[in-house]
């Protein structure tokens, strides 16, 4: 069997990530998945230069604290409180 270079690279990555013993095993699993639902190949689209970082935080130094704040608030309220709040909304 001969595979296109990009497809071979992708297959090697999938084999390693899914801890398959061999490329054949990874390929077999992929074919099974494709038969069940299907994954189509698409043209490559580079993401370089396609996003913007907020000018006020170009190194994302404050980004972690923004996200952490969301989780701190969630953790401090606890799962029981969140369920009660959801029940009230419903």
């Amino acid at each position, binding site marked *: 069997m001969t595979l296109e270079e990009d497809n071979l690279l992708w297959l090697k990555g999938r084999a390693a*990530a899914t801890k398959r013993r061999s490329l054949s095993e990874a390929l077999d699993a992929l074919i099974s998945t494709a038969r069940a639902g299907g994954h189509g190949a698409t043209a490559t*689209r580079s*993401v*370089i230069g396609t996003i913007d970082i*907020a000018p006020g935080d*170009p190194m994302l130094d404050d*980004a972690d604290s*923004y*996200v952490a704040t969301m989780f701190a608030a969630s953790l401090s309220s606890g799962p029981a409180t969140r369920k009660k709040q959801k029940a009230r909304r419903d």
Partner: protein
Amino acid sequence: MTDTAAVTDTHALIFHAAGGGILGPKAKAAFAAAERRELIIYVPMAVLWEVSLLARVVRINLRRPVREFFADLFSNPAYQPHTLEADQVFDADDLRFTRDPFDALIVASARDLSLALITRDSAIRESGTVRTIW
């Protein structure tokens, strides 16, 4: 660069997608190699989620929905999502050097794959829990 694969932290991927100017020299070389399909870069699930949250709080502008951004990224076979599994969560729980839930899961992902992590995060780099590239 002798590595054939690496794992990316959130900010590294964002810097790359923003043009790459802020990346460290080794990180920039790693992403350039992935663009040439000479290096596989795995993207942990925690990175997908953190990117979506940063877009939500407008720290970054993806210029399209997060789903489309990652569809574009993964259209290059050298970028691959790394699935989050229970063992990684348990490993992240054991990593006591950080309280940041994303950092712990991202490090656990790199450890799961036994690969270097592309990161400038000083806490991760100094923790010795994973090999780092920057």
